[in-house]
Each structure stands twice: as C-alpha cells, then as structure tokens.
C-alpha cells in the first residue's frame, strides 16, 4: 500500500482494505476515540466503544462503497454506535445548558459544576454544553475532519443547513470558551 493510500485509503479495493485493516485501525483509532469520548465523556467507555466500532466496521466492510471516503463511512458507524450506546444506557443527551447563553459559573448547580470540573479539559467541558446534534456536527468537522458534503450525507441534512448549524455551533462554543472562568 502506498503512503498516500495509507493516509486516507482512497480508491483502495475492499479486499485490500480488509487485508490491511491494521493500518486502518492505526490511522483512525485516535480521532475515533476522541470523537466517541465527546459523546460519552468517559475514557474507558470511549476505548471500549472504539474497539467495537472497528469490529463492526470490519464486519460491514463488504457493504462499503469504495468510491466513498473511508473516513466518512467509519465516522458514520462511530456516530451511530455512540448514539445507540447513549440510548441503551439512557444517558441524558440534553446539553448542560441548552441555550448556551447562561453559562454556569460553577456555583449555581453544584452537580453541573462538579461534572465540568471532572472533565478537566475546557474544550471537553464546552462541548458537553452543546446539544448532541450540534456537538456531533462540530466533531465531524473538527475531529473527524470531514468535508461539509460528507457531513451532510451522514447526517441527512442539506449542505446549506450543515454550514449554518456549524457556524452557529462554533459561535456558541467560542462564547462558552471565551469565559474560561466558568470552570
């Protein structure tokens, strides 16, 4: 496999991807783990789910369309798997602050403040405050590094809609991060 193909596995036939699946795991394990963590906010769970995503992807490889980018297909599986997990475990999917305007100061709700402190990283904490759908779009754009058309295809939204929602989500994220004192 060439270095360029190693990078994104573009145009590789399914049989070759199947035989070199170890390279696929090496290439995408970290972004997928980060992506899933931002759904579940638990390191161990994120690691377990990441493993399961690759097992699931390997099983479904015969149905993969090689003309599509492998990354968008993998992140589509990761997104569905994380959402299934959240549904099974009945993890609340509401953002910590639905409006994004009243950023908690840590003192208003001790449970929320404690959760945010546990997250440690300010970006994780800020992501936790976005609604799940917006969070997913931001993660697909910035962690998975997918293009707008790819995100639109995965999330069944129009490209224009994805752009608008991404812009608004980024604005909210920026507003939350602008007040680092909330942690």
């Amino acid at each position: 496999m060439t270095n360029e193909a190693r990078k994104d596995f573009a145009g590789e036939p399914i049989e070759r991807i199947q035989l070199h699946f170890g390279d696929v795991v090496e290439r995408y394990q970290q972004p997928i783990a980060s992506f899933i963590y931002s759904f579940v906010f638990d390191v161990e769970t994120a690691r377990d789910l990441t493993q399961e995503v690759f097992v699931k992807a390997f099983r479904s490889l015969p149905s993969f369309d090689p003309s599509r980018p492998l990354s968008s297909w993998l992140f589509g599986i990761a997104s569905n798997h994380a959402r299934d997990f959240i549904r099974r475990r009945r993890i609340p999917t509401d953002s910590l602050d639905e409006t994004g305007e009243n950023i908690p100061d840590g003192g208003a709700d001790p449970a929320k403040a404690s959760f945010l402190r546990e997250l440690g990283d300010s970006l994780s904490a800020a992501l936790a405050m976005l609604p799940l759908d917006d969070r997913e779009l931001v993660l697909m754009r910035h962690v998975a590094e997918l293009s707008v058309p790819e995100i639109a295809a995965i999330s069944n939204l129009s490209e224009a809609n994805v752009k608008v929602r991404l812009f608004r989500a980024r604005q909210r994220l920026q507003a939350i991060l602008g007040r680092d004192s909330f942690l």
Partner: protein
Amino acid sequence: MTNPKEFCDLDARFAAYRPVELPPGFSDAVMLKINRDHKHRHHRDIALATATGFLLGALAYIVSTLVFLAGKFQLGDWIKRAEELARQVDATIFLIATHTVKVIFKASDAIAFSPWPDFAMHALVWVTSALALCTIFVSAATVRWTIKKNATPSHS
C-alpha cells in the same frame, strides 16, 4: 459575530484536542478482537451451512420415503375416495387439496405398481442419497467461498 481570530483559536484548540490517551498496543488489541470475532463468525457459518445441508438431505429422505410408502400401501385409493367425497359435498378447497395430493400419489403409484418395484425403490433411495450429497457439497462450496471472500486481516 465571532471574529476570524477567535475561529482560528478554536481550530488550534481542536488540533490539540486529545481527550482519550490510547494505551500502547491498543491497535493490536483491536486486531486481536477483530480476528477472534472473524473466526467465531467463520465457524458459525460453517456449522450453519453443514447443519442446513444435513437437514435438507434428511428432508429429501423423509419426503421420498413417505411418497414410496404411500404408493406401497395404496393410499392413493383413499385419496380418490376423499376426492369423490369432496366432489359430492362441493368443497372446493378440499377438492384442490385432494387433487394436489393425488398428483403426488400418482407418481408413487407408478413406482409401487411398476413391473420393477424393487428397482424403483432402489432408484428412489439412490436419487435421494445423491440429492442429499449434492446439498452437502453445495454447502461445503458455500463455506469455501465464504472463507475465500473473508480473508483474515493482517496487522502490519
């Protein structure tokens, strides 16, 4: 409105975003899990194909034996009587059912009352055995095809 500088800051934050540290050998563990799952599914496919082959073979034996026995014990006569009865009471569904069974028993009658009943019986047994063997071979070929299709993944 958020200014471009702030957007750049966000990009920089995401570039450094690594909330989960994966332990060394994580990809090896993933590949081990994939290989285990692959083998498990592979063995399950083989077991399923073999069981299906044997079941189909057994079914072929049972059907041929029933047809043969029906001819041997002249059950066709009973079917004829049932058909007459159905005609008398004008029960259409029953008529269709008895007619269908009659067609089947016609074949068994032909076997049972042929000038070479023993030969016919042997032929029937041989044909059924061949059918069962064919089914098993087809299952085996399917398994082989599955093995070839799902090549074991490697980890370079």
